[in-house]
């Protein structure tokens, strides 16, 4: 104590030197001045100060620390060396550092800001909303985080949207086990699905592609509703789904996930990250799964003679490398390979019988190999300028039998995209431009097996060079504009120009209004995109040469964050319309045929969605969503030949609702998630030409599904168990006339709800961080 006093005397106060010999109490006084005392407060919504208890207080660069009491008060001795910085930190608050030049100030009040009210919350708050609509995003983008993905079985991407209100997931038929997504009531083919900014599901992978990325490989999924950015190409119409894989620098060094369910699905996912030097790292993902064991009896819980899920084995591998050259050049490259066999239908013996009509068998064999590269350069002197080039080369092959129908296809693709980014005058105005090149080489053959005719062959080579430019204005406060246009040259259709525009306005810091509009287009590949119709007795009829599909999409969104009872809540309302200029109509209205023709007349989708999320405490999260679809297209009339009629798109429920209730215990050791979904009725295709016992009603019946999961986290691993379709709702007659799969009534594609009963699953995640 005396020593400290002496120090102070020397340093500052000359007057004190004079006073010390006079009064010994001075010693006491100046000793107490060696201590800093203070009070830590926060400001509530009304701006009133309230004490903040238990914050940590520390002199930076020393080990002197303390914490505040219940009233936010603290005392801390000054460090020996001045000036010094005092750090005040509290979980859930933005920490503050205060510079003290000397020891003259001995009493201080510190105001900490609740970090949930600032935008920069991700690093400091303990709880980040697992799936949230980003109020600052320029587009209506929803983030599905890795945490959200672990709340459901999420074996693969097709299942990762089960708890999401914007993206719908449906089985396409009752025999192949394939799932497809829908956005805005329209098929997944109108949504651009990318991984790491590269095209992912296109062409041959349309029907089964979503099962080709396991959920455990994924860091985030970004779902953008409405027209997407022109930078990624011309194909996004109803939305864009961007899958971001784990990064080698951030991923666990070792991660193993095992999964099993009562439908005899066994799955193993692992990844291994290696950081070689500070500028080179690699991540290896592997996946192996098996559905059903040949020698263990076959799963046919609805007793229709058909396997509920095909016997599937999938092997999947991805290796990615990231490197960095000084602070100028960053790059990635990688390779992905996949092999999948699906055997379904009557039983696995059916595989050996693809030419007769004794057994109905399904066999789908897929192979994919792909390499990708990404390189980016920034200019250290002008950090707002950058240049990037990305390429992907892919080969895929599919061989399939559905009974006596045979389909085979191969697709070779090359994709190159370049992005140059800079600013105009200042960082409020950003500009991106670049060129892209797409090559797709399709070769397909199809044989209906009815007559002894030879295979019908289809080949298509499409080379599409394109250029684009996108301007972004962002005033850093409340307005952003993204205006883009791209021009692509198609050999068959000529030069196509697609403009797109996104506006965002924040009337307050808690609200966002967004408007978007734009045009997209895609080349149809009807066999690959509709392979579920092979699982029916329908004859494929292509009426004319099919043109490119072109559509406009417009949307508006309102997002509002508010605090009822001081708790976080968000309200969202969005409305979208998609208008087709041309569409390849898939007409199922005649039970004997599936007809493909170009749209003549109207085809549109109107969608309204509203949702509200509420977190009454850090432990509870609620989400309630409702969605209305009005999706219509112009079909051939079944009643007056030669005329066309505007009808609801079949098998799409008009109304849906979703409720998520999630509980997270302290430090996320226990997580319980619940999802209840309700589906309204949908129109079923006309079946009046079938014999009466195989006719379907005009509409489906409404139904509920319920899924839940409990996970428990331990220091080195996590365990989870859960159930899907816990109410065990199964649609009646998932297969029309299963007794005669080669007869005229057979149809496994009239699917408007669950085809499998209750599924109970369990798994573990082991990680070395």
């Amino acid at each position, binding site marked *: 104590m005396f020593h400290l006093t002496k120090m102070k005397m020397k340093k500052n106060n000359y007057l004190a030197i004079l006073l010390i010999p006079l009064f010994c109490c001075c010693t006491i006084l100046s000793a107490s001045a060696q201590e800093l005392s203070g009070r830590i407060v926060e400001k509530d919504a009304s701006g009133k100060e309230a004490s903040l208890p238990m914050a940590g207080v520390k002199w930076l660069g020393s080990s002197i620390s303390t914490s505040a009491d219940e009233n936010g008060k603290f005392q801390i001795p000054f460090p020996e060396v001045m000036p010094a910085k005092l750090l005040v930190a509290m979980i859930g608050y933005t920490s503050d550092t205060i510079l003290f030049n000397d020891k003259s100030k001995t009493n201080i009040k510190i105001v900490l800001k609740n970090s949930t009210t600032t935008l920069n919350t991700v690093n400091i708050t303990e709880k980040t909303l697992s799936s949230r609509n980003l109020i600052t995003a320029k587009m209506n983008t929803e983030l599905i985080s890795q945490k959200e993905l672990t709340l459901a079985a999420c074996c693969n991407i097709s299942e990762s949207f089960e708890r999401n209100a914007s993206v719908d997931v449906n089985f396409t038929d009752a025999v192949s086990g394939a799932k497809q997504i829908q956005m805005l009531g329209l098929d997944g083919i109108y949504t651009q699905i990318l991984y790491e900014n590269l095209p992912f599901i296109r062409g041959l992978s349309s029907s089964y592609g979503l099962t080709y990325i396991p959920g455990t490989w994924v860091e985030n999924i970004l779902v953008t509703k409405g027209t997407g950015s022109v930078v990624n190409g011309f194909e996004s119409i109803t939305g864009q789904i961007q899958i971001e894989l784990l990064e080698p620098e951030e991923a666990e060094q070792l991660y193993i996930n095992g999964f099993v369910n009562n439908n005899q699905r066994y799955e193993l996912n692992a990844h291994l990250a290696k950081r070689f030097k*500070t500028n080179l790292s690699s991540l290896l993902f592997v996946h192996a799964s098996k559905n059903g064991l040949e020698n263990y009896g076959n799963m046919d819980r609805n007793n229709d003679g058909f396997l509920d899920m095909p016997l599937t084995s999938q092997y999947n591998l991805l290796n990615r490398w990231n490197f960095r050259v000084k602070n100028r050049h960053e790059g990635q490259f990688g390779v992905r390979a996949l092999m999948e066999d699906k055997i379904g239908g009557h039983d696995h013996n059916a595989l050996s019988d693809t030419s007769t009509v004794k057994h109905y068998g399904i066999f789908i064999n897929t192979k994919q190999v792909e390499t990708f590269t990404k390189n980016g350069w920034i200019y250290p002197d002008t950090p707002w300028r950058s240049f990037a080039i990305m390429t992907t080369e892919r080969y895929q092959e599919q061989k399939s039998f559905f009974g006596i129908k045979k389909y085979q296809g191969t697709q070779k693709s090359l994709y190159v995209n370049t992005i140059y980014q800079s600013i105009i005058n200042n960082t409020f105005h950003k500009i991106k431009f670049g060129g892209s090149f797409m090559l797709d080489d399709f070769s397909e053959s199809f044989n209906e097996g009815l007559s002894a005719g030879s295979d019908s062959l289809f080949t298509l080579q499409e080379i599409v060079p394109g250029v684009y430019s996108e301007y972004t204005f962002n005033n850093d406060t409340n307005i952003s504009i993204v205006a883009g246009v791209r021009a692509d040259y198609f050999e068959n259709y000529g030069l196509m120009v697609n403009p797109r525009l996104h506006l965002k306005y924040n009337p307050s810091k808690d609200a966002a209004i967004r408007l978007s509009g734009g045009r997209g287009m895609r080349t149809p590949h009807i066999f690959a995109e509709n392979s579920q119709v092979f699982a029916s007795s329908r004859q494929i009829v292509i009426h004319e040469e099919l043109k490119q599909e072109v559509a406009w999409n417009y949307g508006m969104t309102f997002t509002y964050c508010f605090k009822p009872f001081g708790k976080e809540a968000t309200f969202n309302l969005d409305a979208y319309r998609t208008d087709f200029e041309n569409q390849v109509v898939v007409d199922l209205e005649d039970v004997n045929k599936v007809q493909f023709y170009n749209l003549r007349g109207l085809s549109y989708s109107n969608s309204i969605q509203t949702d509200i999320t509420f977190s009454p405490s850090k432990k509870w999260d609620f989400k309630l969503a409702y969605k209305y679809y009005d999706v219509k297209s112009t079909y051939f009339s079944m009643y007056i030949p030669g005329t066309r009629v505007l009808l609801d798109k079949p098998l799409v429920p008009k109304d849906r609702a979703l409720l998520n209730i999630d509980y997270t215990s302290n430090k996320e050791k226990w997580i319980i998630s619940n999802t209840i979904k309700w589906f309204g009725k949908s129109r079923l295709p006309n079946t009046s030409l079938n014999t009466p016992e195989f006719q379907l009603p005009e509409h489906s019946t409404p139904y509920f599904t319920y899924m839940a999961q409990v996970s428990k986290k331990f220091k080195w691993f996590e365990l989870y168990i859960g159930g899907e379709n816990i109410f065990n709702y199964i649609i009646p007659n998932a297969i029309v006339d299963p007794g005669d799969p080669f007869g005229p009534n057979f149809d496994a594609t009239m699917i408007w709800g669950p085809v499998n009963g209750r599924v109970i699953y369990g798994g573990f995640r082991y990680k070395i961080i």
Partner: protein
Amino acid sequence: MKTISKTIAVLCFAFFSSSAWATSDTTVVIKTSAECGSCKKRIENALNFEKGVNAAVLDVASKNATVTFDTKKTTVEKLREAISNVGYDADNVPANEKKYNKLPACCKKGGMPK
């Protein structure tokens, strides 16, 4: 209104903190040698599974771990030791050497480019 919001704030605090009404909770700030996002995960995981810890957050930019814990169940020394045991310095406690050597290159001191 003011009293109401104050009451709510107090209630919230009670509701949020795992040991409601406990007065033996305290918060400390521990300086670590963390470098990156995986260091953050590693340290937070180690702290969260220490007995008595109610919450732990590491800020990578400042390398400070802010830990709220129950003084009846654990001590700052034990928390520093927990951080050291996953390979990082904690205030004046140096990292466990064996564990430090096993860290990936980017997680070692100076491993991330500035």
